[in-house]
């Protein structure tokens, strides 16, 4: 089995008529689980493949991606350390990441 071909999947999904967004880790600070360049591919139904963290912020990235698909404009979002008392989404490992979310048009 090969590693997942996320960009191949993104193209295939789009060409099959699905709405698609691509999320890419652009910067990491401290202990972040996935390096810059890591991808998450999301479709308009909220299905996703790949990862931008160890599973900590994927849920939030998927909902941002649905907004991006609806709005058609890319956005850059940041995640810091999780603050459980504030119910904030974040990285329990103590790192920070920026994620660029763009529609595939």
């Amino acid at each position: 089995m090969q590693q997942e071909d996320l960009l191949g999947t993104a193209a295939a999904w789009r060409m099959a008529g699905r709405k698609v967004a691509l999320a890419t880790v652009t910067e990491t600070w401290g202990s972040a689980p996935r390096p810059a360049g890591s991808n998450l591919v999301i479709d308009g139904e909220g299905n996703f493949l790949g990862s931008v963290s160890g599973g900590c912020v994927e849920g939030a990235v998927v909902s941002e991606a649905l907004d991006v698909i609806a709005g058609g404009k890319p956005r850059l979002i940041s995640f810091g350390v999780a603050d459980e008392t504030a119910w904030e989404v974040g990285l329990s490992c103590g790192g920070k990441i920026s994620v660029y979310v763009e529609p595939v048009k």
Partner: protein
Amino acid sequence: MQLALLNALNEERAARRAAIVVTALASGEQRLVKVADVAKDALREALEARLRSGKSGTEETPGGKVFLTVFVPPARLVITGAVHISQELAPMAQRLGYDVTIVDPRTAFATPERFAGIKLLAEWPDKVLPALAIDAHTAFAALTHDPKIDDPALLHALSKDCFYVGALGSRKTHTARLERLKSQGTTDAKLARIHAPIGLDIGAVSPAEIAVSILAEITARLRLGDGKR
């Protein structure tokens, strides 16, 4: 990302050619730079450094902050020996993202039944290795135990700057191998690059465990370079 750009990128990736996507983070403007066009690009220095490291990241440019997504071809693993260890090693290496090729002229060993889904060449290494264009993104493992097959392949791999070269066999076997290769004119510096006995010493016994020890050693060379064990 425009679908046309994504398709062009996927075409480069499929052809094992490096490429970089440049994204202006403020405007979202995006372009694809193929490896052949890097030298004439305005961001040439940054792009070349990124290709060498293989790492994506942000850069400050006169035009603002850009993100460079770097695509270098997946590392390859070339193995001589369609042997039992290879039956475990090849699929594990594929799982790690390696493009795997096995070379073994012994047709009783090199059968598709034993190596489903693996690129298998039932030929002598001298004949087929040159066409594989082995490069610095390639790891090589000699696993046949047969000098007639392994030696010429090792000589070829050492001449091509593979990031990893390993050979199966005990210390005694390896000492004899070094003498043979030296008598054929290979320098001590080149011979010192051969990892033998192959694999990290984790007490591996079964073929699958030996495959893990080999892949651990290859991963270390890929990620840490030649310095650290």
